[in-house]
């Protein structure tokens, strides 16, 4: 059983099959993401009720919160796929990890920027040294460190393995950093999305939020697949299947 699963995974993870399958999947993910993002934006910006304390300016959370979620989620993906690449030597996992990093950094940056835009009217300052903000900033540094390390090591295999170790060390540290910073100083409002705790978010605001979150997630999947496809093509540029692919593309091109 286990053997056949592994065989299946190895089969899927071979660059050639990954390239073909991801090519088919990308449009689906991309269109679904676009659809969800449009629906979420319309719902969030026009339909959801005005907050009784924060007025209309709270609406930025429909970008801010999903971006912050994604920033953490992508780091987890990076560390997990790094570990998979390290343990089972699946090249594709390394590719996913390295192509996730810039996207994750971008989401982290987005969360920070939208947060500070929101903070200006709410707290009266672009930046406060608050726990969550600081933790998010540190997360951005972790992403940048990962990308810098990858850029510094020339051999791509060694770079991937070194980065995987770094990501795993980082992931162990994230909760520690998170709690230490939280304990250090807290001004940010607590999480209100879980329905079990009070005060919690109203359902009419929760729906657009979840739509946006799902849209962000699918967008990430689509983008990471595109980037991974490029990387796979680049690293395998001298192998047989890529040459065949180029040949068939050339034929298509000339026949037109």
């Amino acid at each position: 059983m286990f053997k056949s699963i592994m065989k299946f995974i190895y089969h899927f993870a071979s660059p050639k099959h990954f390239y073909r399958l991801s090519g088919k999947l990308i449009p689906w993910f991309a269109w679904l993401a676009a659809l969800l993002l449009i629906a979420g934006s319309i719902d969030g910006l026009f339909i959801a009720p005005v907050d009784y304390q924060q007025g209309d300016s709270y609406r930025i959370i429909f970008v801010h919160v999903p971006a912050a979620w994604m920033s953490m989620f992508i780091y987890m993906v990076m560390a997990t796929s790094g570990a998979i690449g390290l343990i089972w030597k699946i090249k594709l996992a390394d590719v996913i990890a390295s192509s996730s990093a810039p996207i994750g950094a971008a989401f982290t940056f987005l969360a920070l920027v939208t947060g500070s835009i929101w903070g200006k009217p709410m707290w009266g300052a672009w930046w406060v040294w608050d726990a969550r903000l600081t933790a998010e900033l540190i997360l951005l540094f972790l992403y940048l460190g990962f990308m810098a390390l990858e850029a510094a090591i020339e051999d791509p295999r060694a770079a991937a393995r070194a980065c995987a170790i770094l990501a795993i060390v980082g992931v162990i540290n994230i909760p520690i950093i998170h709690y230490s910073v939280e304990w250090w100083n807290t001004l940010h409002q607590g999480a209100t999305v879980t329905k079990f705790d009070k005060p919690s978010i109203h359902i009419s605001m929760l729906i657009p939020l979840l739509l946006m979150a799902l849209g962000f997630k699918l967008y990430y999947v689509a983008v990471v697949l595109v980037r991974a496809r490029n990387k796979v093509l680049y690293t395998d540029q001298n192998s047989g299947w890529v040459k065949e692919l180029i040949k068939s593309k050339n034929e298509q091109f000339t026949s037109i």
Partner: protein
Amino acid sequence: MIKRDLRIAFRHKSEILNPLFFFIIVVTLFPLGISPEKVLLAQIGPGIIWVAALLAAMLSLDSLFRSDFEDGTLELMLLSEYPLSILVLAKIVVHWLITGLPIIIFSPLLGTVMFLSNDAIETLMITLLLGTPILSLIGAIGMALVVALKRGGMLLSLLVLPLYIPVLIFSSNAVGSSMAGLSISGQLYFLSAFMLFCLTLAPIATSAALRVSLE
């Protein structure tokens, strides 16, 4: 192993003295740059001393693996019959003895210069005792990742400093609290737990990183 590295370190006295002088100079810069006022210095003193200790520990990491990497000793360590993580741990212990320990010894002096109270100085020493091993342990992981690179210094700080943040927060907070007369057991428990955690896992991560770097 510890003996060998210590002997090497004592032959190059500057390796021990430089981080210490760096530490002292950085702390000296702050009163010159900000103000020599007693109240203000006492307030920011713990943070400054800790930031300086952190930078001194980070800048001295280079001595941990660099020379052994260059003359090939590191490769022999990889091939030796002893587990690599134990050998790595020995090197980390030496690094702490030559950089962490002098800082701890000199910290009361700097604490006095920064007008910290006696209680605060005592706490400062305890937090340094618990915290500097963490700096050496986490730093070793970062150093192992960049040891094969020619210009690793800047990169090393980018990798290691974010991971140092919890130590900085808890330590300087503990010193601040003890100045205000509050209980500091929570911070000390956390620091001890974090140190034990790093002590068990960091050598393993470091040896994994060394294997990657030396391929």
